């Protein structure tokens, strides 16, 4: 239908526009994908060979040694364990806490509805800042502690608002009829509201999980002294920092017949850190689209 229409009234401008559109989209896709494909190619290329040959889209001298080297490093292994642990635990805790918070705030008859909402909305606009927060966590014994990854961010006003907006869209009559049947507020939350909120829960879980997977600053700030509490991104960051300092110098590590360079290890580590996310996100598209549109319309 649309095609027929466009054929009927063909502007010269439309053809130029069409060509421009195709070229633009092609360039866009290439620019977006190139760095990742390039990193992937380097990660599967022999380290020394990467220095000699320019690697673009495909490896020149295939090798999996870079990956072996990454997994042989204590830091990356510990980092992987901690990253997975904080992503799973942190997402679960955060989801439960934010769901309860949103549920409480969205109840029409909750006695402190107004003041309690305000209490949380304020937290979006005023925060203590880096240093006071650091000092408070230190006092609470959260420094040099795994819990600093999952406890502080568990409740967040923004996530709460997204869930609350969704809950506000659920008719009150469901709650009322359950109350007539004698259900308490916890029962209503658990068996009536939560099952209906699955899409928004999925959205928040995705956001929080990506946040946890990509976090590194808390590891550097609070757990710097404890290597067993490191996370993947922080390990990557440390390697990147070394690379920035010794830019240009080539320190190859002879390892049997093959060579591993900092660049090639870093490429492999980068791929290891991004693969889980790249595998998951295409399947969750509809969730984050809903999440963004709900979250964008506050109040």
């Amino acid at each position, binding site marked *: 239908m649309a095609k027929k229409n466009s054929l009927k009234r063909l502007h010269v401008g439309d053809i130029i526009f069409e060509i421009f559109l195709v070229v633009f989209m092609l360039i866009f896709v290439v620019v977006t994908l190139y760095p990742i494909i390039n990193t992937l190619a380097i990660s599967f290329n022999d380290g020394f060979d990467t220095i000699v040959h320019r690697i673009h889209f495909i490896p020149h001298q295939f090798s999996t040694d870079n990956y072996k080297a990454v997994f042989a490093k204590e830091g990356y292994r510990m980092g992987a364990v901690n990253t997975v642990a904080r992503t799973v635990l942190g997402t679960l805790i955060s989801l439960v806490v934010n769901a309860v918070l949103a549920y409480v705030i969205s109840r029409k008859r909750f006695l402190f509805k107004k003041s309690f909402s305000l209490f949380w909305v304020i937290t979006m606009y005023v925060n203590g800042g880096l240093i006071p927060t650091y000092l408070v966590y230190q006092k609470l014994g959260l420094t040099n502690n795994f819990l600093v990854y999952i406890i502080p961010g568990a409740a967040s006003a923004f996530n709460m608002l997204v869930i609350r907006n969704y809950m506000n869209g659920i008719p009150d009559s469901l709650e009322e009829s359950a109350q007539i049947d004698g259900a308490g*507020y916890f029962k209503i939350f658990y068996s009536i509201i939560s099952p209906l909120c699955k899409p928004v829960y999925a959205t928040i879980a995705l956001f929080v999980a990506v946040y946890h997977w990509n976090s590194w600053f808390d590891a550097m700030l609070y757990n710097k002294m404890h290597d067993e509490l490191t996370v993947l991104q922080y390990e990557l960051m440390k390697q990147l920092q070394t690379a920035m300092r010794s830019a240009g110098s080539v320190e190859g590590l002879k390892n049997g017949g093959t060579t591993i360079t900092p660049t090639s290890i870093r490429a492999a580590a980068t791929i290891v850190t991004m693969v889980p996310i790249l595998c998951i996100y295409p399947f969750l598209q509809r969730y984050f*689209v809903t999440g963004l549109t709900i979250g964008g319309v506050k109040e």
Partner: protein
Amino acid sequence: MATNTVNVEELKPHKKVKFWAEAKRQPFLLISSALLLIYGIIFYYVPVLGWVTAFQDYKPAVGFLKSKWVGLAKFQKLFENKTFYLAFRNTLCMGVINLVFHFVTAIAFALLLNEVRIVFAKKFVQTISYMPHFLSWIIVTAIVRDILASDGIVNEFLMNVCGKEMAIDFFAVKGYFWWIVAFSNVWKETGWNAIIYLAAITAIDPCLYEAADMDGASRFQKMWYITLPSLRPTIMILLLINIGNVLNAGFELQYILGNDVISDVSKILDVFILDWGISQFDFSLGTAAGIFKSVIALILVCLGNWTAKKTGDERLF
């Protein structure tokens, strides 16, 4: 009629039943809100109380209560610090550049993607477009570093295609840094930021396009005169939300790629705070700089909200 109104009143017990009777009916709400209140106070409000350290010569060993009060001396020291000025300027400039790029690229991309008619191609490009959003800033920083390295693709392109003779050291020239940050943000976030506009575009009344077809409008004209103006409310709201974020100009790029040669343009407030507060142990000065940043951000948010009210667009809070 009269009996009806009485019934309605009875159906709204929260107006008639006393406070305590209602409280008895919602133990779950009260207990969980109490716990969340304690949590919120500890993790969001107590750190704000920590602002007092900015008015003290805070020594961790001595504590909040016994540290010496110095009034505004720390702020004075802060405002006399040349690095602080540079950091503030850099943060503001990078924030503003990012904001402008964010809007222009996201809107342009959404408009163009909307014109792609092959559904598969549209889906494919969109899926690719928000992939970088899910990568961490560390990974993006690594990518930026590799692309702009002396043997990176950009230099290769400049030398082979544009005929430059020498590779440019992008991290040693002050003029480039802000634009590196801006383009990194564009690469990472354009597709993601466009989602909300694409959602808004689907809500536009198709009659408008049909009417334009009748009048013989070209596709570009339809895009320019119908789609773009229809996005105005969405653009306004997002602009106002993001104004409060101008001082959050990113962190990783500046922290990792910034070096001594370009620190005049690369240092931002967050790095300044980290340098002084954590590395040099001047907690009070770090807090003072943090307060400065928070207050400016709050003013910007209020300003945005006030503008929204004036122009008749939806309020933010």
